[in-house]
């Protein structure tokens, strides 16, 4: 992740220690993928209690940008910054693959460089990436257009075939009502370096930068 923001996008990038509390200098917080504290209990369940998380909540309150990728998305749901939960994949196995996603909204800083309904290929790598929420929450998400990315087939059909992990409504990524917090299971940073074969994820970061730098 740091490689993309620091080396590919040439942005000042600071790694934040889990016990840090002073992060006022940060414009965009990225909670990256991984296995926080080993995730032996439930993904993100321990990370929500990291000392740094109080500062993350304050950062969110001020309307500043937060991106949670994979484990970061799980942490954001555990923190309550995003609704719903991520549970075991439909077939109970970890999945590492390239998923095709449909971009549902392009009016967010995160997605303004994409076109509406664009189908992009972004890697996924998770064991607990099946998005779940109760009926009411799901309805609110849809009504507020908080679903940002949906799993789909290569031809852009949002159906069971295009759904790798059983996520409800094929949800791959959601934002909060204000749009400053984005959580997604796929890894845009793994599709942001042409040497590795795909740059479909780079636009997500570029869109955000275009806004911040403007």
């Amino acid at each position: 992740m740091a490689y993309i923001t620091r080396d590919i996008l040439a942005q000042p990038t600071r790694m934040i220690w889990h016990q840090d509390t002073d992060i006022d200098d940060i414009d965009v917080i990225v909670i990256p993928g991984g296995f926080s504290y080993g995730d032996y209990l439930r993904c993100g369940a321990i990370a929500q209690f990291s000392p740094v998380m109080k500062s993350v909540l304050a950062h969110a309150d001020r309307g500043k940008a937060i991106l949670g990728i994979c484990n970061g998305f799980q942490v954001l749901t555990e923190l309550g910054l995003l609704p719903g939960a991520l549970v075991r994949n439909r077939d109970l196995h970890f999945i590492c693959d390239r998923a095709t996603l449909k971009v549902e909204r392009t009016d967010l800083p995160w997605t303004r460089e994409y076109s509406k309904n664009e189908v992009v290929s972004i890697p996924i790598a998770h064991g607990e990436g099946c998005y779940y929420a109760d009926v009411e929450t799901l309805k609110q998400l849809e009504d507020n257009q908080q679903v940002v990315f949906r799993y789909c087939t290569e031809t852009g059909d949002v159906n069971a075939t295009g759904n790798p992990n059983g996520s409800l409504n094929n949800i791959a990524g959601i934002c909060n009502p204000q749009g400053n917090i984005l959580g997604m299971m796929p890894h845009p940073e793994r599709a942001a370096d042409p040497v590795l074969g795909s740059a479909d994820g780079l636009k997500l970061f570029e869109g955000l930068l275009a806004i911040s730098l403007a």
Partner: protein
Amino acid sequence: MTPFSPQEIASEGIKPEEYEEIVRRLGRHPNKAELGMFGVMWSEHCCYKNSRPLLKQFPTEGDRILVGPGENAGIVDFGDGFQVAFKIESHNHPSAIEPFQGAATGVGGILRDIFTMGARPIAVLNSLRFGNLEEARNRRIFMGVVEGISHYGNSFGVPTVGGEVYFDPAYTGNPLVNAMAIGLMETPEIVKSGASGVGNPVLYVGSTTGRDGMGGASFASAELSDESMDDRPAVQVGDPFLEKCLVEACLEAFKTGAVVAAQDMGAAGITCSTSEMAAKGGVGIELDLDKIPVRETGMVPYEYLLSESQERMLFVAQKGREQELLDIFHRWGLQAVVAGTVVAEPIVRILFKGEIAAEVPSTALADDTPIYHRELLAEPPEYATKAWSWTAESLPPCTAEGIEIGGTQRSWTEILLQLLDTPSIASKRWVYRQYDHQVQNNTVVVPGGADAAVVRLRPLEKAEGGNSSWNKGVAATVDCNSRYVYLDPYEGAKAVVAEAARNLSCVGAEPIAVTDNLNFGSPEKPIGYWQLASACRGISEACQEFQTPVTGGNVSLYNETLDSDGKPAPIYPTPVIGMVGIVEDLTRVCGQSWQQEGDTIYLLGLGVEISRVEPDLTSELRECGVTLGASEYLAALHGTVAGKPPRVDFYLERRVQEACREGIRRGWVKSAHDCAEGGLVVALAECCIGGEMGAEIDLGTPEIDRLDRALFGEGGARILVSIAPESVPEWEAYLTEQLGEHWHKIGDVGQQNGSLKVLLNNTPIIEASLADMGDRWHGAIERRLSGYK
């Protein structure tokens, strides 16, 4: 009077004559703790007492070799300041008993070997063997092993980028789990394991010590039996998150320059690390067990010394700088204590509750250990000579329509589809999809896409004012066709090395060095030793021929299961070769799949015509040809494991591989795939499936003996490549110069979702649709697993 009964001695894995030797070395009888220390350190796993004389013949030196055998991992120079550490290790017996933790801690162990040297792990590969998936026990082991590897590697954050998986009844109950790790040196100096500096403190860091994994090294050096299930405490439990913290803390600690030496605690835990560090440094170590952080109470010295609790390391630090190091580990939430001192006297002295609990000369444990020079069979054993007497003439006759097998007429297309449905040949997507193969953002070729994995070399920290475009890579492969080795250990082992080099060449990488994992049966049996010795001779010769020195590895013997009648059933001898190669330009890397309709397809190496059988040629030379001996076709279709495996022609191999690499470097070659199990036609089918494009193949009108040999025969140093039409003149001119007659234009890439059509003597022999081929190949493993859910 011996203080131990013969049973007590035997239970430590010590033979009566070895016990006498211990008494002679000590000048007294050992106590219980010391006996346990000798037991683990004199096990094959730790001291190679059976294999050492054989391993000596391996070539170990070369211009690029920075660290050869003897350290935690080998290190090679990749140029431009890149130094690559790599090593392979087995965790076969633990995986047989507890597949998930057995495999998981196997990954954990090999990762520690890498970062103990100061290198950051950047990739893992696996070589796995299981019994047939039709048996429930094998399915359980297979699924558990894959999940264990996935659990540890994914959580630690290292991509599992490649490997191989075979299924054969020979591995029922004794699976093979070999894990290879690759690391990029991150510290300015390579960290070695020899202790030095009398008075320097000895630090224990990482996790706590408990009773888990007691005596795992001895356990790994004995046959498995029905009672082995009772040895479950000998299997360790891994904590990948703790190891992730450990790698960060270790690399940070090494960068301070305050660490004199480091050794990971793997097999035989504290015993092994203290005695090896002391013996290598020619000094002694005094260690106080009361200082060791524990996870349970009431442990006795024997248990401390033999525990194989995971994620622990031993450091020798510069005197006066220990606190600096302890602080780093504590910041990462890890245990770290000063537990001992380097002493001048070359002994390992263990203190417990203020008294000496054990005191043994360190070289007696780690250096000057027993060696068994065994008698090599003067003649090949009967099973081999019997198998060699097989000839293809015993098979039913072939026609253009097919062959009658067991009373059923089978077409060549049906046979191709059946081979694609063989789990050993079929897609391993079910396996690698569970491994995070892209974490760290350097995976250039994902699993399933090419004959070898390719990972970009990129330091974690951006160099001062340096460039940020990293264009150099490491290619890696693990290989072993164990049926070849079983049927002819010497020739088979050569073929294994040749295939590894060929696989690297197919992605465009220059083969550099080897790490080997020798998985064999009992060396105490004449056939087992003959297999081991012959295979070592083959590896040695082949590594010399390819100029790929061996930088270390692992030996796993006694891979035999005793059935309930007490009859030993050895595995196929399986010398797994892990090979690394340099990719100078990551933009010139090749996959195995067809790229473009209309591209021209070439077969490099031997063609389909029968090798000229001149009466004056010796039979040995004739065997260099493409053969059905030891082939997958023979085993899968005719149920026959016999014949001689194809013999390696080193000269041809090197020329073909060089041609392939040069073609990729020049940008002529758009896809490259070696012909392995299943021969030419299976390789063609794999190129089609990967590219989702058909192919029109015309094999001409060659003189052939049997159609099945022409289609499915193996060997012949073969690589299939596809070339864009505009490059054809240059490419062919180059081939004529480089390979003489050993190249063949055999057809064109067909249309998307078309079919594979093979013509021979102007007669259609095979026509298989992409849908049919893809269905068999993609679903073979999943179908066998889901059918029983």
